[in-house]
């Protein structure tokens, strides 16, 4: 989560649940590319046809509530979406997104200010979100220190590998 992200905003409401992010009928798919074709289908069937690689999903509170399906953040990432910005995330989705490397940012300030179609540039390291259309800058909440350390260490997979190596 280091490179600058850039794309247009697709703005949605609150409580965007995993059933609309990737409907249940697709949950037997494990190929990310195939999942990506159905990202957000339950809410906005046009999403994957109107979005371009790098675009950003912006939503209100409790993004990703509901099921624990990891295919939800996988589908968003595989669609080419570069990040999700929300006022808050549901607990399981938050862990899943970080575990699979989908950049997520909590920023009420950004959510309130941006509109669909705005061009954003995000510096993941500092949580800086620049709105190029409106010429504004917002700040995302920093990750808790433990989460940041996990991210910096290369994610959960690297953490597990390290723990296993220590046991030998």
């Amino acid at each position, binding site marked *: 989560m280091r490179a600058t992200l850039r794309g247009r905003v697709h703005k949605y409401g609150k*409580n965007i*649940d995993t*059933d*609309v992010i990737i*409907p*249940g*009928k697709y*949950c*037997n*798919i*494990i190929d990310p590319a195939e999942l990506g074709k159905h990202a957000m289908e*339950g*809410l906005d069937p046009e999403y994957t046809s109107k979005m371009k690689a790098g675009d950003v999903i912006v939503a209100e*509170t*409790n993004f990703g*509530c*509901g*099921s*624990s*399906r*990891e*295919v939800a*953040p*996988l589908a968003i990432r595989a669609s080419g979406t570069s990040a999700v910005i929300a006022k*808050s995330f*549901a*607990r*399981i989705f938050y*862990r*899943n997104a970080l*575990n*699979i490397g989908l950049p997520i940012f909590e920023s009420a300030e950004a959510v309130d200010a941006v509109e669909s179609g705005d061009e954003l540039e995000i510096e993941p390291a500092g949580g800086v979100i620049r709105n190029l259309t409106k010429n504004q800058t917002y700040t995302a909440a920093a990750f*808790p220190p*433990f989460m940041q350390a*996990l991210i910096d260490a290369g994610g*959960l*997979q690297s*953490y*597990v*590998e390290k*723990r*296993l*190596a220590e046991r*030998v």
Partner: protein
Amino acid sequence: MAMTLTEKILARHAALDAVEPGQIINAKVDLVLANELSAAVAIGVMRQMKGADRVFDADRIALVEDHFVPARDAQSAKIAKIMKDFAVEQKIKHFFDVGRGGIEHVVLPEEGLIAPGELIVGGDSHTCTYGAFGAFATGMGSTDIAAAFVLGEVWLKVPATIKLIYSGKPGEMVFAKDIMLKTVGTLGIDGATYRAIEYHGSTVDELSITGRITMANMAIEAGAKNGIFHADAKTIAYVTERTDRDFVVEKADPDARYEQVIEIDIGSLEPQVACPHTPDNVHPISEVTRDEILLDQVFIGSCTNGYIEDLRVVAKIFDGKKIDPRLRVIVNPGSQKVWMQAAEEGILKTLAAAGCAVNTPGCGACFGGHMGTLGDGERCLSTTNRNYVGRMGSPKAEVYLASPATCAVSALTGRITDPRVAVPVGV
């Protein structure tokens, strides 16, 4: 330091004297659960982890095929096979194929795999169900489950606890489902996010184990990390009938710190209905029935209400009657054992004679996957736990949630109906 029930279980599993909300801990797990959807992804992740050839303990992993069963299509069969091959390779004892298990959260307690004081993580959001037994149980995604498969540990942020105190005796045709719908409506869909829910009070002390399961199951519908009851004589009797392993019955300290304490009076509670399209859009039945809400489907089953106690209520209402010709009723007994018990008691025959389709135990209809999917413009009243847009199929369908009794009575009339008005006495 005084601790809540959740804090006590977490502290012991992290080998700490005490923990407090917000603390990050590394906790040992007693059981790791996955179904064919979460397992297929988790196994893929595990294969990519260097040095992760074996699971930490083959007897502390449960794999249950339940989401697209019997396999809906070749892709569903493929992921089921990934899980089955893994179970064989890793010598996992608690593997439940179609016909030998059922819905994971119904199966695990039945098989004695859940006991008070234990810590369970599962690749399914309704893993919180096991809080009914005084265990800490929470749902996670597949990468976290893969980590738990190999390490036998998980990192957790200790949640602050919300204490819910229920008082009053439930009225006629008011069940645990109504109490929990009311609770979700009160807390809101994200009212307990990152929190533990601890259930207290005379009302829940009187509930059966099945009633507590229904309530713990839907803790996630308020966003909670877990929902937990204190184990009592009923819990211990249930568990010791099914396992002889040792377990620790924990108890919250009297001076434990709760972030919030909410008192809920059940004495005057009516049957409740969650209207489309969120589980916290909850209204009393008298309000909902002011409009005539005609139904295309009634669904009875799921990890919330697919238990023998639920089927008995439904069969009593259906006994000798026919469901309304305008709708269909689909029933999924929660597990193979529930199915067999229902057969033995003549319940399956009663249901079939009333016009119900009785399916293989599984999760399919609840999440719009298989065996009871809704079409455009259809409306369903369901005993399940979620009613998001598209949850049971078409995004143009509507799902209402209610108790098995409200669902059964409504199936006879063809529209959402107050079970207190239109029912035979004595159910």
